[in-house]
């Protein structure tokens, strides 16, 4: 016998460990050890990543966002106990799919707002009262949050990245979403 023969006994560990790791999230949830479950869903505006906590949806990321960076931020701000889990994110993935199939005009599942702060929270609270299929200008939103001259600030808050496209996902995704809601014709 040669010692190097022993190495062959662990053949197949790559695939087997991937399968065993799949079941890890469910056991972690059953033991109340998982703080954030991450899953993904395909949509007309690209692949979306959802991060769900016991309180609700905490983060939704677009495919061109730095995935590792998004997870690192969640680990830093909320908890490093993060695992991928298709089962734990299933209900949110389903609601998103229904929304993009135009079978749903509002989301029923809870949102974890711990990552939303200050002005952004005020602006999002105002925009979520804009009915499905309707639009409001930044100026109108600024009025509603009691800062009538802060239209540009509102645009930046929605942009999240500081640009004036007015939407964190970029102007093209904004157009696709407006089109989906029937507010923008002829694109």
């Amino acid at each position, binding site marked *: 016998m040669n010692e190097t023969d022993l190495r062959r006994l662990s053949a197949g560990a790559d695939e087997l460990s991937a399968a065993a790791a799949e079941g890890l999230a469910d056991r972690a949830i059953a033991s109340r*050890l998982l703080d954030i479950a991450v899953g993904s869903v395909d949509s007309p505006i690209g692949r979306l990543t959802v991060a769900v906590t016991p309180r609700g949806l905490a983060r939704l990321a677009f495919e061109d966002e730095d995935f590792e960076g998004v997870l690192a931020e969640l680990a830093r701000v909320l908890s490093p106990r993060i695992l991928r889990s298709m089962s734990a994110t299933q209900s949110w993935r389903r609601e998103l799919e229904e929304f993009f199939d135009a079978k749903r005009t509002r989301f029923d599942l809870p949102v974890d707002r711990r990552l939303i702060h200050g002005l952004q929270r005020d602006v999002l609270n105002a925009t979520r009262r804009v009915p499905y299929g309707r639009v409001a200008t930044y100026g109108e939103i600024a009025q509603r949050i009691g800062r009538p001259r802060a239209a540009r600030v509102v645009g930046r808050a929605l942009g999240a990245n500081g640009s004036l496209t007015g939407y964190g996902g970029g102007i093209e995704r904004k157009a696709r979403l407006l089109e989906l809601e029937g507010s923008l014709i002829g694109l």
Partner: protein
Amino acid sequence: MIALDDDMAARISREGIGGPAPEPPVEPVRASLPPFQDFVELHRVTVYRFLLVAVGARDADDCFQETFLSALRAYPRLHDGEHLDRWILRIASRKAIDQHRRRAASPEPTAELPVTSADEPPHDGPLDGLLWKAVRGLPPRQRHAVVLRHVLDRSYPDIAEAMGSSEEAARANVYQGVKKLRELIA
């Protein structure tokens, strides 16, 4: 011991041996911990290779998940810069020992752990089958030491750390284990 897995170790690493540090740490302990998913991706193949040979294919999945559940429980309390590779192997080694005890405690026809085809990892050829049976017949600590040394290529300090033993004991276990395997397989 470098890895943290209980409050005392956490306190020592916070305060240092010999009492509290004069000032609290500047950053919270978990400030730079990567998401646990990354930790799993980094270590899952190593842990599975160890368990596949240490406990057999039938129990490897369960031991693997138990190992990472224990790690997840302690994870937020870890320091950046811990020897995470040694830490996770140490947990896996403990889970493997627990598994051997459970198997030994269950009513089995012989004192020796029975070798069944369900225990065997996938392998090619009759030689590997013989080798597997020979490895399976080693006492657990010798088997673990041999696996850490010759399947995972770990250093003796690493093996000692993973098994919670001295370096001398690690060397002796590897030596005795390999000697027995050579006697059984020419």
